[in-house]
């Protein structure tokens, strides 16, 4: 068994499941949004604002922002652990990988918080 302290759930099954659940959630959301846009092609700003300001859409958008953050972190963690290894970066691999993972984690957190501010007001 290989332990890992930077993966999302410290456990392969947990990460795998989260990645799939968030992917399904995102797919459903984007199909719904595409459908809404097709059905409301001529919608003006006020209609859009009312639609996005409804409690249902605020909750859905919050879930989507969290899903994107979780999905992105799980996926990019895999990318960094695949490609930033001792084979490519020698002895400095762990330091480089940790640095890049911290940058990704920081950006993901900022985007998620920024998204929440947009959805719930204040930005």
């Amino acid at each position, binding site marked *: 068994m*290989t332990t890992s302290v930077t993966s999302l759930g410290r456990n*392969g099954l947990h990460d795998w499941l989260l990645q799939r659940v968030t992917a399904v959630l995102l797919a459903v959301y984007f199909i719904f949004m595409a459908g809404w846009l097709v059905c409301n092609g001529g919608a003006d700003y006020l209609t859009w604002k009312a639609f996005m300001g409804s409690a249902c859409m605020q909750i859905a958008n919050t879930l989507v922002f969290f899903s994107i953050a979780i999905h992105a972190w799980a996926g990019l963690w895999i990318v960094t652990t*695949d490609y930033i*290894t001792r084979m490519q970066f020698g002895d400095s691999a762990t330091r480089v990988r940790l640095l890049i993972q911290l940058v990704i984690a920081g950006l993901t957190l900022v985007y998620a918080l920024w998204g929440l501010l947009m959805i719930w007001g204040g930005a």
Partner: protein
Amino acid sequence: MKVSIYRYNPETDKEPYMKEYELDTAGKNLMVLDVLNLLKEQDPTLGYRRSCREGVCGSDGMNMNGKNGLACVTALSEVAPGVFEGRKPLILRPLPGLPVVRDLVVDMTMFYNQYEKVQPYLQNNTPAPAIERLQSPEEREKIDGLYECILCACCSTSCPSFWWNPEKFLGPAALLQSYRFLADSRDTETDARLAKLDDPFSLFRCRGIMNCVSVCPKGLNPTRAIGHIRDMLLERGV
């Protein structure tokens, strides 16, 4: 026909190189191992492994025109379009991702280390019966397509996840063997076996690209076995 072979002798060569050979096959659709044996008469320094020459021992796994396989059971016409006809050269390289010992001979230590980790032997903590542990025909059927693996390493060395993390990801061959014992009704260590596969690397580094399935010379399906293990983990963990 033209044959291009990866050559590297760490004692004399600074770096690997491809050496070109010409061979007259008299129009015969030879097996790649036969081609190597004929070339070995031309050039006795050529190094490669072979033993049974009938796809049983798994010694002569190599990369033929970009695809892994056993040289002894791969005919020239099966390597790639145009190779048998002489329009394209036969290109032989060692199995990718493992350190090269010499020419087409690779060091299989990393592969065997991962195999060892899955404890590929029957474990049963109940008292031994007088004669044997019986299985029903249905229980026995469950290990068909699993026990036939000959450990040639063609699958694991065609897997990018194994190339990137050969010390952490078990690889398709070891995981196929792991499922062979998880699926065996006589094995009682299912929980302990599954607990060792639950981390982000050992099993979950499989991205399901199925290179392993496409190259297995025995026609086995490690991706399906990995899927079954994942289902068992899911059932255990949810």
